């Protein structure tokens, strides 16, 4: 992974993804088969060639374990507990009237074998960073007690062909209760990833959903200048709801949160709304933070020039995809196998 040279204009990209109540679950399924309203909110910032993600996994009650498998653009340097108000502050920036209400409702909530790069325990959340192809990561998940949705094998390959790094997050509801966490309490997680350009996985939001199911999500993107996006959010389930210079108060507030001192002095805030059927989401959002030419490969509109196989290193192009891979709001949601399989 490459870091931008010192002195290079600050590049900051931030993403926060939130989902709407009923349609927001992205296939999150409880052990009894019922849809669980757990959902996650994500912030991703990009500065000096390093991606910073703050994702909140929110306790939604119940018992057992729930998990997400999230494609990442690169190998994280560290995974740690995130700040306290970053996510809520970003939401408030573009929806000031509903900010607090929204925050309350938000459910921040292998053949050769995948290589485990990192394991971190944060409160009731077990996080594992994996490297491997789609089959290997899928096998790892299966061997660790998860049952993936039927679309998972294809979707895992879709992402692994561009970046073989995934983050598996398991939320232990029983441990959360034992810790005294209340329903609605979130566990913010900050992931630091050296990388070269933002990329927002969207296709994964439809995983586990039927073709006609709706996917609703808000993506907040902060770059140091107006970014170039692909696909441009003007249709096919995407729209650009906000595009303006980030306010100084927003940047100051973000910078004052735990672990957020990297936030630059200036930036451009975009809000992309996703309002699509699951079958529409065949693409990701490619971002060129410098405002020139986002990658068609990163957008999922074109296959990588040379797919190195399921365990291969990412090519330069793949590295360039970078991104906001933490589609934690959508993730690949897994189901613990603690319950019998119906059949």
């Amino acid at each position, binding site marked *: 992974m490459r870091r931008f040279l010192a002195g290079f204009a600050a590049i900051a990209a931030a993403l926060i993804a939130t989902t709407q109540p009923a349609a927001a679950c992205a296939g999150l399924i409880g052990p009894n088969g019922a849809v669980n309203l757990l959902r996650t909110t994500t912030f991703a910032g990009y500065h000096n060639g390093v991606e910073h993600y703050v994702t909140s996994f929110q306790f939604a009650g119940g018992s057992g374990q729930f998990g997400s498998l999230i494609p990442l653009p690169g190998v994280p340097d560290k995974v740690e507990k995130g700040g306290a108000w970053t996510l809520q502050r970003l939401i408030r920036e573009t929806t000031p009237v509903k900010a607090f209400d929204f925050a309350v409702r938000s459910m921040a909530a292998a*053949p050769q074998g995948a290589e485990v790069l990192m394991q971190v325990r944060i409160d009731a959340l077990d996080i594992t960073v994996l490297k491997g192809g789609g*089959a290997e990561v899928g096998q790892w998940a299966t061997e660790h007690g998860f*049952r993936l949705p*039927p679309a*998972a*094998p294809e979707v895992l*390959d879709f992402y692994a062909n561009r970046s073989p790094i995934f983050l598996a997050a398991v939320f232990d509801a029983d441990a959360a209760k034992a810790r005294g966490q209340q329903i609605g309490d979130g566990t913010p997680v900050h992931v630091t990833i050296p990388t070269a350009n933002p990329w927002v996985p969207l296709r994964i939001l439809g995983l586990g959903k039927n073709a006609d199911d709706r996917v609703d999500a808000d993506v907040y993107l902060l770059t140091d200048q107006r970014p170039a996006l692909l696909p441009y959010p003007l249709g096919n389930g995407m729209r650009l709801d906000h595009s303006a210079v980030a306010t100084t108060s927003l940047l100051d507030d973000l910078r004052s949160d735990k672990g957020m001192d990297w936030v630059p002095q200036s930036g451009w805030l975009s809000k992309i709304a996703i309002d699509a059927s699951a079958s529409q989401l065949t693409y990701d959002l490619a971002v060129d933070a410098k405002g020139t030419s986002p990658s068609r490969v990163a957008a999922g509109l074109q296959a990588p020039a040379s797919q190195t196989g399921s365990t291969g290193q990412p090519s330069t192009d793949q590295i360039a995809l970078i991104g906001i891979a933490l589609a934690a709001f959508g993730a690949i949601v897994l189901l613990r196998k603690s319950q019998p399989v*119906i059949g």
Partner: protein
Amino acid sequence: MIIRTLVALALAALAASACTTASAAQLPTHIGIRIHYSHFDQTKIDVPMGVPITFTLVNDDPIDHEWLIGDEAFHARHRAGTEAVHGDRPNEISLPAFSVKTTTLTFDKPGPLTFICHFPQHEAYGMVGVVMVKP
């Protein structure tokens, strides 16, 4: 991986023979079905009645599947069933990730039978096929 590739090639050959229009006597008695990206690679298969038919089932996915064949009443039971694993009956085959299994069945009545993976969402995702038993 090489073994899976060879098996897949063998299955392709079997599939090609299975697709050939033929009388019941000429229909194949060995059928290969590969599962990839949660889909059966064959969804319409003709087989002869009254002779043993061997199915080789290859799960090429990193997730578990199953292959259950029967009539509508059979599938209605399984849609509401609670069996975690199949294996004692030749028409109910559990297929763990990256597994290959073989089963032999003799069909004594002509007509269609459906094979389905009844894991949650898998049938809706398209894991359905039909075996047409020819007299």
